[in-house]
Structure formats: C-alpha cells, structure tokens
C-alpha cells in the first residue's frame, strides 16, 4: 500500500485535489461550471418534477370507486377529443395564467413589485429547508431577492446562476428577517394587530416543528396568539406588509428576560411548488430607521416608536446592500453559504 503514495497516479490525485480546492476558493456559486451544469440539469429536473407531481395527483385518484372511475374515464375521453383541437401551446399558457392569476391581487396592491414566476424543481438531500427554482439571472433574479407566494413570505435567494437559483426558506436557521442595532430595535417584522416589532429567526428544533420566532419583543408587548405578523420593510430586503405567519404563543427566552413569539408561517415551505421572486420593489436596498418619516414602519405602539425615533440611520441589514452603516452590530440574512447546508 505504501508504494501507492509514490506512484504517478497518486500524484495525479494530488493535482486534481489542488485544482478542485482552488476552484472551490476562487469560484462563486454562480460560476461558469454551475451555469454549465444548470443548462443540462435544470430542464431535466423540470420534467422529472412535473412527472412526479402528476404521479402524486394520479395516486390520489386511485382510491375512488369503480363506477366513479369509469364515469370519469368517459368524461376524460370526451374532454381529450375536445382538447386535441386546441392550440399546441395551450397547456403551457393555461398553467402560466393560473400561476400568475394568484399573484394578480398582490400586483394590484403593490404596483411597484416586479415579480418573476418560478417553479420548485429540486430539493437537495444535503440541505435543510432550501430548494432550487427554475429561474436565474437570465430572468433578472439576484442574490437576496425575496421569494413569496400569494399566501406569504417563503424565503430569499441565497445563490443564483444563469437559469436556476437556490432559495433559503424562512424555516432555515440562516434566515433572519430584519436586524438589531446596538441602540435601537430596527425591526424587520411587525405584529399587524398591535404594532409590536421584532426580528424573525428560528433554530433547527423549531423549524422541525414548522415554527419560527419573532424575537426581541418588549416587556410591554401586547402581542398575543392569533395576531398576524408581517414584514416591516425596514431592512430593505423585504417589502413592507408581506404576510409571514400567525402567532401561536408568547414565550420567555431561555437565557434572558426578553420575550419572543412563536409564529406559524402561512406558507408550508416543505411542499410549496410555485413561487414568485420579487426582483424589484420600492425601497429595495434602502435601510430605514423605525422612526423614518417616510412612513414605511407602521406602529400603533407609541412607546416603541418614541424609543426608536431618536436613532441615527440604521445599520442593520437584511442583505449585503447598505449605503450608510453605523458601527452597530447587526444580524444579516445570509451567513456563509456553507452554513445553510446540513
């Protein structure tokens, strides 16, 4: 066995390891190799996901009675003969229309949104609470773009290449909506009923229960079970008033006296199939303080407003873009990409 270490083949192995090591250090997740691989794999994944989804639907129908199936069979045969006269791309347009129709209300309420429809085509076994979508930089998607459905926030784009992107969901411990400065609570999420604000985060134990938490609630919080939590739009990463979830309970932190709320997200990120990526919206990349006169932060809690109104420009960021930063510590959305993998 020791002779192996002196062979030419072992030297080739060492060379290959060095090349791969250099590649991993100097290339980004959106590099040439990733783009090249995605050109081959993404269309195949689209097809296989479509087949898998249709098979799941067919399996559900298998439990129906024989008479029902025969009647449905005849009905479907008649329908098929009708559909054969339709245009070749009718199904593609119908699917796209149904998908986009769900977002029509959102678009009408928020005309500044520039959404890109995408489908979930892959869930890697080595990552937790992340998935791959079939749109990338070619569609205008970039890292840190928020990902939503008509039901609420799904997550954010953590890596992107030309025709696909990786989405880290709100159940991932790497996601934090909003940030906290040394001198103020610069909230990223708000209780819509009471106006209490905090930071959405989670840990793996809560994620496995399908829960996230709204941290840094004040001791005078009026938040209670049943309240709806929305984004505040302060961090510049998520637009304001996107639904996140419903408070299930208020708890004390384990190691200090602060309070947090357990939140059940509206969107089941483990089964979602179609999403929308917001590539542009008003206020994107602009970090605002809670007392900013632009009125993006809405609070009915007068004590928290006065506490935060005296702060200078906030330094917390939900992403990497910020034009003015103080020296305050802030928690950001993305840690290194390796920590999002499990």
């Amino acid at each position, binding site marked *: 066995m020791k002779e192996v270490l002196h062979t030419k083949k072992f030297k*080739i192995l060492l060379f290959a390891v060095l090349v791969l090591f250099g590649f991993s250090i100097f290339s980004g997740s959106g590099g040439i190799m990733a783009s090249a691989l995605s050109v081959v794999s993404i269309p195949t994944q689209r097809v296989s996901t479509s087949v898998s989804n249709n098979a799941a639907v067919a399996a559900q129908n298998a439990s129906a009675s024989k008479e029902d199936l025969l009647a449905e069979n005849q009905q479907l045969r008649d329908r098929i003969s009708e559909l054969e006269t339709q245009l070749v791309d009718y199904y593609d347009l119908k699917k796209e229309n149904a998908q986009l129709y769900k977002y029509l209300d959102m678009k009408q309420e928020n005309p500044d949104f520039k959404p890109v429809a995408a489908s979930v085509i892959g*869930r890697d076994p080595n990552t937790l609470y992340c998935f791959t979508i079939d749109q990338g930089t070619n569609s205008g998607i970039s890292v840190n773009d928020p990902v939503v459905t008509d039901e609420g926030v799904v997550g954010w784009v953590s890596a992107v290449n030309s025709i696909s992107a990786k989405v880290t969901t709100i159940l991932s*411990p790497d996601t934090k909506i909003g940030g906290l400065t040394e001198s103020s609570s610069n909230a990223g999420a708000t209780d819509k009923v009471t106006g209490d604000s905090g930071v959405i985060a989670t840990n793996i134990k809560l994620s496995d229960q399908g829960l996230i938490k709204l941290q840094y609630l004040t001791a005078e919080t009026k938040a209670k079970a049943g309240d709806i939590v929305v984004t505040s739009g302060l961090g510049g990463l998520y637009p304001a008033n996107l639904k996140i979830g419903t408070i299930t309970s208020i708890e004390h932190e384990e190691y200090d006296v602060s309070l947090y709320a357990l939140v059940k997200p509206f969107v089941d990120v483990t089964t979602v199939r179609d999403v929308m990526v917001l590539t542009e919206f008003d206020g994107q990349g602009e970090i605002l303080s809670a007392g900013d006169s632009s009125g993006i932060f809405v609070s009915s809690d007068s004590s928290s407003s006065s506490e935060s109104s005296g702060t200078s420009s906030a330094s917390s960021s939900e992403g990497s873009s910020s034009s003015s930063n103080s020296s305050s510590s802030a928690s950001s959305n993305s840690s290194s990409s390796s920590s999002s993998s499990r």
Partner: protein
Amino acid sequence: MNRYSILRWLAYGLELFILFILQETPGLSISILGEKAFLLLPAALSIALFETNLPAMSFGIVAGVLADFGMGHPPGFHAILLAVLCFFLSELATNLIHTNFLTGLLTGLAGCILVLFLQWFVMCLMAGSEFPEYIFVRHYLPRLACTAIPIPVFYYFNRALGLFIREKE
C-alpha cells in the same frame, strides 16, 4: 483505453446524472423522517470497486461536483472528498481485498458513514450551528439510513456494468 471502457464510462456518467436528478426531484427518492437519500454517494463508491484508481477518482469527482452543485456551492467539499475516497477505495479493491457482496456492502457503508460524518462535522459543527447533536441525530442518522439502503442495488448494478461491458479476454 478501448471502446468498451468508453462505453462503460458513459454508462457510469449517465447513471450518476440520472441519480442526481432522482435525488433532487421532490417525491422521487427514498425518504426516512423527511430526510432524502444521498444517492450519488453509494453509486460513486460502488463504481470505485470495479474500476482502476484514476477512473474511480474521476467518477468520484463527477459525483462530488454534482452534489456540490445541488447544494448551490462551488465544486469543492464533496468533489475533493469523493475523489480521494474513490481513489483509495479502488486501490483497496484492486490490491488488498476481494471484491464481493460483503466487502461491497461494508466499504459502501463505511464510505457513507465517513462522508456524512464529515459533512456534519464541517458544515454543522465547525460552522457553529445551534444544536449540532440534535441535527446529527434527527437529520443525519435518517439520511445515513436511507443512503445506505440502496447500496446492494448499486453494487450489483455497477458490478454488471463493470463485468459485462468489458473486452473479453
């Protein structure tokens, strides 16, 4: 290198690509407690048993690059790990051990345990994740279980490819 070798390598490449698609597509691969099987891993390890060290290393790299791509990372961690593992596994199979079902099963299992443990160690423990022991028990052990289940299938499949697509002596 002859046409049988090229044909065999194309078959291995196609196999790894199909397995990558299978493991990525929701609902298509084995799942235990919500954890999906890392199908590329036992496939690359079983290919290494039936090939010489350089081709084994190459397919380890291919499987590792696909795994890193699926995670959204640049090729690195899995590519290097599987390259080294498959190289030495091939050496082992060529010079030290007799390749049969039992050794295939044991080497496959050992390789899966090693890779997943290192994955947890680097991406979870060293990365400073909260509750690493919980992640190991709740996520990595089920993942190891469903990754290990198809080892016999990959062994026999790649054994068939390795033996039958070969120049007759």
